[in-house]
């Protein structure tokens, strides 16, 4: 090691030692007299001290920053959950397919088939169900089941 490098190393150590003493005592190294005195002999060390000081601030803070994000996420999640709960309380229970169909009072539905034909059902307000088939000789099983469901609902409406 050259004499200059050795001298630089010694002074660097003096700054670092002063910085360590300040930090161990939880003092701001840039406001510490011993650090300032050491820096007057080795001004180039300021950049390193300032960098360490800045990074130690970040070491001390990220938990708070991330905690903040987490806190916001949790808060937002709670608000959303509360909103959903309120909405869920106001809405009827999720209807089953049959129950949904049973709630229909006036409805028109058409089904397009792959073969290009289509079927349409209409339930009017008085419960009458009309069925229209276009270019299809027989309803598909699904269409038949749906038609049956609609007719049952229409029968109920008619009785009421």
């Amino acid at each position, binding site marked *: 090691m050259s004499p200059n490098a050795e001298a630089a190393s010694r002074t660097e150590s003096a700054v*670092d030692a002063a910085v360590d003493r300040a930090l161990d005592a939880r003092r701001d190294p840039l406001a510490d007299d011993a650090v*300032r005195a050491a820096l*007057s*002999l080795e001004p180039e060390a*300021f950049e390193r001290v*300032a960098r*360490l000081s800045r*990074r130690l601030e970040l*070491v001390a803070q990220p938990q708070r920053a991330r905690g903040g994000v987490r806190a916001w996420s949790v808060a937002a999640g709670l608000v959303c959950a509360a909103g959903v709960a309120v909405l869920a309380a106001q809405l009827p229970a999720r209807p089953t397919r049959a129950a949904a169909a049973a709630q229909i009072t006036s409805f028109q539905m058409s089904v397009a088939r792959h073969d290009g034909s289509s079927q349409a059902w209409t339930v009017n307000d008085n419960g009458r169900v009309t069925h229209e088939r276009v270019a299809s000789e027989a309803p598909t099983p699904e269409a038949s089941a749906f038609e049956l469901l609609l007719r049952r609902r229409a029968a109920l409406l008619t009785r009421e």
Partner: protein
Amino acid sequence: MEDSAALQDPEELREPRDLGERLAAERPALLRFLRRLAGRAGGVPDPEDVAQEVLARALAYRSFDTARALGPWLRTAAVNAFLDHVARARRRPSTLRVEPPDESPPSRATLDDREHVALLLARLGPLERELLIGFHREGRSIAELARDHGLPEGTVKSHLSRARRRLAQEMPGGER
């Protein structure tokens, strides 16, 4: 009526002038010193401003012992003035910023710094990382850390010191 200057001690009349001349002669060295101090660190005060402030203070410091070497005194005063500027700039960054405003979003620099810190923390050994975080983030004392890890306090300080050295290292590819 006697000339008031004639009543004064000739030494007193000569000192300020001599001090002024000596300060003027020290100015280039002081400026070089402040430029070394400022280095490449961003957001630091202008060395010219600090030098001027230090020289003005020195000139006003009438009780300065002229037998003392001026250089070390000026350097100490310069470090103090410089760091006072830095501290004030930290408190009021917008009022002391003289460089053109940064076009990038302000949070980007902090994010980069956080990434650097996270990377440097990851590179530390488990014990050094634990001690550094325990001391600087969780606010635990050296005595507590020493007790919890079954180490002498001096060893904890040594680990902390090594961890800080590594934390202060420049990142590959340059430091902002």
